[in-house]
């Protein structure tokens, strides 16, 4: 198994981004949520509701309300 440090992984990604000309924060699309399992959708909704009870946003940007 190959071992690498998190910081080394980050460095590789930064190097590849520079080579590819990638910048900003929108070049990887989030999961649309359209095909999530009902179980996963419920879990993400529950996380969002738990976060809301703390007066905070959820720690993710994913979509969980859309249904196929």
């Amino acid at each position, binding site marked *: 198994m190959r071992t690498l440090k998190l910081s080394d*992984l980050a460095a590789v990604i930064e190097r590849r981004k520079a080579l590819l000309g990638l910048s900003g924060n929108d070049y990887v699309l989030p999961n649309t949520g359209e095909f999530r399992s009902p179980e996963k959708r419920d879990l993400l909704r529950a996380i969002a509701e738990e976060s809301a009870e703390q007066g905070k946003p959820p720690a993710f940007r994913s979509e969980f309300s859309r249904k196929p």
Partner: protein
Amino acid sequence: MTFRHEFVEALTLLATAIDRLKARGYSPPILVGGAAVELYTGGQVTSGDFDFVSADQAEFLSELERVGFERPKRAGWLTRSLWHPRLRFAVQVVSGALMDGNADAARIRIVEVSADQEESDLTLRVIPIEDLIADRMAQALATNVIREDMQNQAVRLYQLAEGLDSDYLDRRIRTETGGEGSLQILSDWAKSCAP
């Protein structure tokens, strides 16, 4: 560092729980799914939960509770899931073999997660990136119309990685997509994907 602070903090907590699990003689769980995409893209996708494959589900959940993960008193909360109230991340643990036993275990990545010298032996096992790419391609091709989100994730994982094993990647794509996909198709997608 490209990763958000709370993501790294969560990884460190998870690695601590896994370290304790290993010390008790259990096999270490493997990170899969959206959090693995977040890891391999340098935080470009923000995942809300960490999906793990573990042969020792109950023991792993028990160690997660010891490092601060909790089971909310919410109706419908999954029995195999926990959440961390301060970091606002959930962990979902599924049993079974990684990629139904089709992944080469020798290729699993071991990531040293902590920047702290004293915690330098904290590690997480992560699905091989080739398998993750194959999984995203399979999801992209699973519907009548190619799923743009999964297609994009497959391409970006492919583009942002170094040292991919092309033969293994091609074989895994073909297996996961039932022969519909290949490394050539992924490469073609990458050429048409704008920076």
